[in-house]
């Protein structure tokens, strides 16, 4: 009774359910969200350079101290590795390994936040001191908020893994959260270059 429906000669039953990876609509959604977030940081850094270029001395107190920032950069960039390993783990259907790697990535993220907050408390200026302080704290603060969101997303992934709601057939949530976490690391490289490296090249 049921006719066999075909599309371009392929029986409809053989067409896969949902797209995987780059074919999934969810992947596209996350990519464009990431692009617009990246653009947001581009405008923040534009503001930094615009105000800096118009100021007689920039940064007003001389180039910033680098040690903590370099340590932090390494931590955040390295944290992308366990995130990636977690994604690969769920594709192999290894839920336990996903949880373990996700927690490692999250702990590195928490370490980043603690060091960042330490650095903030050591600065001799505040966000109301002048335009440099405003830009420094707003740019790093926006990034800080993005790391916090990334941590919440990783927490969600762990929650789902423990509740048995991610699987090798449904890895998209892990993949998109991974993509977001890599964005947070990538954006930090631009922030690091702008705020910490560029004053030495000025």
């Amino acid at each position, binding site marked *: 009774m049921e006719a066999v429906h075909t599309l371009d000669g392929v029986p409809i039953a053989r067409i896969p359910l949902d797209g995987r990876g780059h074919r999934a609509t969810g992947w596209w959604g996350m990519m464009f969200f990431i*692009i*617009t977030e990246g653009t947001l940081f581009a405008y*923040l850094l534009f503001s930094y350079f*615009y105000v800096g270029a118009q100021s007689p001395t920039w940064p007003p107190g001389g180039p910033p101290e680098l040690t903590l920032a370099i340590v932090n950069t390494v931590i955040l960039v390295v944290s992308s590795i366990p995130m990636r390993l977690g994604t690969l783990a769920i594709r192999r259907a290894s839920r336990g390994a996903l949880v373990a790697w996700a927690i490692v990535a999250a702990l590195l993220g928490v370490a980043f936040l603690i060091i960042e907050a330490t650095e903030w408390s050591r600065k001799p200026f505040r966000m109301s001191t002048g335009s440099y302080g*405003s830009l420094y704290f707003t740019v790093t603060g926006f990034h800080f908020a993005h790391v916090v969101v990334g941590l919440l997303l990783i927490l969600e992934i762990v929650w789902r893994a423990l509740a048995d709601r991610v699987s090798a057939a449904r890895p998209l*949530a892990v993949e998109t959260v991974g993509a977001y976490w890599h964005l947070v690391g990538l954006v930090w490289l631009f922030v690091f270059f702008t705020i910490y490296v560029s004053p030495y090249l000025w």
Partner: protein
Amino acid sequence: MATATTERLTERLSDLWETPHTLRGVLGTVDHKTIGKRYLVTAFLLLIAGGIEALVMRVQLQVPNNHVLSPEGFNQAFTMHGTTMILWYALPILSGFSNYLFPLVLGARDMAFPRLNAFSYWTFLFSAIFLYTGYAVGLGPDAGWFAYAPLTELRYSPGANMDYYALGVIFLTISSTAGAVNFIATMFKMRAPGMSLGRLPLFVYGTVTASFSIIFALPALSVACAFLYLDRHFGTRFFDPGAGGQALLWQHLFWIFGHPWVYIIVLPALSFMSMVIPTFARRPIVGYAWNALAVVITGILGFGVWVHHMFATGIPPLALTFFGAASMAIVLPSAVSIFVWLATLWYGRPVLTTAMLFALGFIILFVIGGVSGVVTAAVPFDWSVTDTYFVVAHIHYVLIGINVFPVIAAFYYWFPKMTGRLLNEALGKWNFWVMFIGFNLGFFPMHISGLLGMPRRIYTYPAGLGWTAPNLITSIGAYLFAVGVLLFLVNVFWSLRRGAIAGNNPWDAASLEWATTSPPPAYNFAVIPTVGSREPLWEERLGLGRLSRIDEGPPLDSDRVTLQTSTLDGFPAAVQRMPEDTVMPFLTGLAILATFYGLVTTAWWLAIAGGVLTLAAIHAWLWPVRTIREV
């Protein structure tokens, strides 16, 4: 297909797709057609609100030395008018049409992200409520729609007026960004099989180009408004020249957003006209590829011209030259679009329906607005007319001419699809002529008052400067234009009950939305159509044979699913499962609204509570359903 089988199929599909008529259904529906209609109604109400603000200003300005409004009341009126029209009306009304029509012209059952779509609508509605809360309690924004710092800083604007502006705008950008992502993903992934990019209806190009521009332009506005709010409440010094800040930083960020925004709110409307004009010229559009490319190129060039809003701010001559030239270059793709429409009319046999009259009116106003725009791209001329009524005339020719006229045309054209009834054509002709004459009577004299030196945004003026007559004529024209809008509303309410029954394809048009019933069923198409040309419903008369298959194809009735196709060529790629209705997008929007009320009243506990609730609602929204079959 046998009738009994068809009936069983439509019954099954209705069970899968229809939203129940309960409160939960009303707040939880993810049907793009319902969401589209809500966008249209809400945006039109905002158009009326902005229109009333304009009329009050015209009453104030119709004679010299008038005192209907206080200076402060006038400031709020013009700021609310501009903000409402440009941000809260102009894009959402276009999103309404695109939301309703995207899946229909693409041959899909819904948007790529139906729940995100509902979320876009709720955040749009709530952000409008938020903005108008400020106005209702006497704290309406009052520093102009582009809110130049440092006038907006706490020292000069101590009330919460500009907080409603800064936060309301950030709130709206959440809605617009979510909508843009959805349109892009829908266009790339949800087309009917066979609909390669070269067979896309031109309708789609404008909205997708605008969506890309939103992705890249809106963050500039969010950053600017965030800086403003931080300056006002957290003591930062972004726009405070006394502490190393830069007032011009606001202007750069605002116009990096602002000029692309002009194209964001006109390109979709241009693309609507690329559907209306061929239908009533009774032939396929001439120069399909030229038109599509012109739209995309305009969107891209729109990012290179923002400084032409800042010619009078003392920037270096090299920048003046560069941005002046770039602004003139943008004439080229616009002219290509116009010649494409003219050629289509020239080679066609035009039928003068009301929709077509509005489309033709739009072409005329587009040319006038384009000419008054390109002359201001010349820096010396700009210096003499900047901040006068000449610029006010230009912006209204552009925004009413290229947004409102196409929108009314689109209503006349697609109203039958949405409601099953045609708008009245006789009343429609009156509607057009009253609006067209009223508009030109109202706005053309503004060029004159501008050239006579009348600055914009003054709340009154003395007699004897030569401004009296043009202002009186402008006010009369504005009233006439309002009568025209009223005629449109009368027509809508009359036709909803008494309009002629439309049938599937009242205009005998070529694109897929006319292949289904009016109004379409919840699942849009009983079977997934296959597309073989640019004009699927005109193939036989064009002598192309039968390339598309409209009434036969896979029914996809096993579950709530639609077909996903490959990005460029539209090959079937996957059967996409679609989410059920849920109230979570509504609740998320509500929680964000609470957050923003907390921020504007600096009740931090409310902001924090709202933020936590937002996270909880998003978590509940995205939590995966176990019942979905694993593959």
